[in-house]
């Protein structure tokens, strides 16, 4: 008989090993799925994990794209991880991402066609404020009325989507766009364009911000009192209260910082890779970032790697679907397996497998 026995303390080895085991298990199970679809599994896995980095024809284009795709995921996941560690569940980063983009792009477009170097920094600040304020709604409701921040933040995503639709059709609609929905393209407004900093590298301000956020979060958690309070509140809420942690302030801080980072991600995306506010602007970064945060063990460096890995499965998945005709749904299932196996293997961090009968205590 096989049974699970709780470890006295989580296994250090397994904490680091689980992501790797999960990726390998995903490759095997995903390979079986591709084989069942009649595709060569080895080739499919190679295209997903190898070709975006080293394929002679694509790699020069897709390698920089990894950064472009990973940056918003990392930026949002870093913010979420702080709250998740403290037991504060912001599930609505997608909405904060949208609001950051709307406010930031809106401020930028309000100055169109002013050509000043101040426009872009102003947009960045407005984007962060937009996300911050949107996250304050669940934050303040939780602090003053004890509402559940999971539900409120999640439902506000749908509200934000409707505001996005209204903005693309109304207030922010391109006056020279023949009545079609969507704002002016910021790519053709140099003062408000988040262009590549070094051409050909994919490196834009959002990527820089993501790296800064990683470093900032690392220092906060490792060295700062607030980081200690966050960890304490998550692991031992009662002890935290006796230790002088103000739970309400912590809630507002965690939701605020994750909202601001999600808002920044939205702003960098709308002013860079996407270029315009449109009805379909958001593509789920706010939700995928939740996977990234957990895949990265809620650790800043882990999140950096997890974001890059997730971006790799996106871009590799697109290549696989193009070259082998693998259905898009199979690629999504493949990405889902990653989280599934991660959570499954995670059991081994806290439990060990025992064979034989349970001993009588």
């Amino acid at each position: 008989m096989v049974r699970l026995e709780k470890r006295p303390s989580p296994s250090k080895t397994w904490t680091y090993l689980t992501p790797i085991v999960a990726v390998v298990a995903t490759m095997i199970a995903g390979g079986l799925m591709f084989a069942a679809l009649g595709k060569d599994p080895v080739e499919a896995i190679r295209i997903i994990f190898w070709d975006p980095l080293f394929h002679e024809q694509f790699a020069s284009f897709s390698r920089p794209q990894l950064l472009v795709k990973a940056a918003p995921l990392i930026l949002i996941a870093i913010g979420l991880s702080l709250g998740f560690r403290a037991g504060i569940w912001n599930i609505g980063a997608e909405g904060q991402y949208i609001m950051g983009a709307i406010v930031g792009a809106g401020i930028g477009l309000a100055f169109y066609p002013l050509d000043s170097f101040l426009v872009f920094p102003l947009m960045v600040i407005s984007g962060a404020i937009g996300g911050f304020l949107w996250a304050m709604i669940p934050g303040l409701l939780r602090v003053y009325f004890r509402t559940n921040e999971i539900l409120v933040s999640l439902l506000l995503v749908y509200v934000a989507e409707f505001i996005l639709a209204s903005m693309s059709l109304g207030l922010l609609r391109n006056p020279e766009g023949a009545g079609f929905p969507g704002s002016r393209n910021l790519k053709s407004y140099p003062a408000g364009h988040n262009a590549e900093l070094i051409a050909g590298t994919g490196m834009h301000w959002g990527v820089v911000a993501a790296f800064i956020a990683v470093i900032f979060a690392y220092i906060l958690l490792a060295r700062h009192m607030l980081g200690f309070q966050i960890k304490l509140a998550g692991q031992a809420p009662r002890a935290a209260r006796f230790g002088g942690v103000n739970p309400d302030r912590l809630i507002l801080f965690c939701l605020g910082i994750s909202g601001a980072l999600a808002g920044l991600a939205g702003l960098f995306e709308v002013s860079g890779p996407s270029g315009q506010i449109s009805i379909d602007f958001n593509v789920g970064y706010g939700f995928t970032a939740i996977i990234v945060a957990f895949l990265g063990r809620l650790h800043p460096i882990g999140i950096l790697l997890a974001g890059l890995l997730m971006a790799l499965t996106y871009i590799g998945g697109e290549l696989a679907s193009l070259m082998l005709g693998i259905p898009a749904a199979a690629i999504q299932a493949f990405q889902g397996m990653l989280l599934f196996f991660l959570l499954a293997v995670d059991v081994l961090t806290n439990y060990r497998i025992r064979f034989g009968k349970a001993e009588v205590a």
Partner: protein
Amino acid sequence: MLRRTLLATAAAASMALTGAAMADGHEKTKACFVYVGPIGDGGWTYQHHQGALAVQEEFGDKVEIAYQESVPEGADAERVLTQMALSGCNIIFTTSFGYMDATNAVAAKFPDIKFEHATGYKREHPNVSTYDARFYEGRAVVGHIAGRMTKTNKIGYIASFPIPEVIQGINSYFHHAKKANPDVELVVTWVYTWFDPAKEADAARAMIDQGVDVITAHTDSTAPLAEAAKEGGKVIGFGQASDMAGFMTNDDGTPGPRVASIIDNWNPYYIKRVKAVMDGTWEQGASWAGMPEGEVVIGEMTDVIPADVQAEVNEMIAAITAGTYHPFTGPINKQDGSAWLADGEVADDGTLAGMKFYIEGITGDIPQ
């Protein structure tokens, strides 16, 4: 600049390769397709994919087909298109309105690859063409059926986005329903998506609860018909973009909610354009074809529609196909009562392509 040069070099290299290989007759022409939904949506994307398959069937092993499903309209589209271009596609069809800017941006970097953008209006580079179908011709036909068939005098339209193509559809549908039945009232529900079965079903349900008994959709899935099927024959609808023949009969053998359909038939256009690439005769264009060219087709009508109505419908189809009847023929007023088309006057393509107003009799506003 570096990225652009890199891309250009890669593109030039791949073109040189294909070019050289094509000269000795061994290399295939590669036609690529970008879809906004899954090929199994049973509607819009399914129909484009049928076009891709028709190309394959027509040219056999002289062409190679590649496609990508469910590509979001935004930053991702540009990456997908670039990867397609790098993978050696000779012609790329981008089959949704939202790919417009991405198509033009990528076309600028790959001047030797032909791009065909569906339902858009931007042709910023000589290698970009646009193509569209006169869906409003089909809407006229189903509008007539709706007007004649409704018992509650309330008909519904599930609208995706307030862009001219959709507004043409709403106006055409209502105009012909009203001509057939002066008491008819139109309910429009905006869902802001092309493909989201859950939202489409919710919209259909909300309309049915308001007493609507004929539903047409401007979205891509079969969900509205599935919702109508729950009403045991009291609510009817139409196949949209594709025939959706599966809804002609219910599982228990009773007549299903789908009484007719508007089919987008992209096959002739796709075959023509791929052939032009193979022959080296491809030129930029803006195609807007309809019933006369066989691009808009009305699917088989079921016996739920009485014979006299079927006869009227067939007459209308024949007139539109022959070019003797234009669905937007005056007198038609705008919603505010001001004159739009005088008696016998026909709408010009420019006005239709930029249509931003409802015609008289429709209640509610176009979302702003």
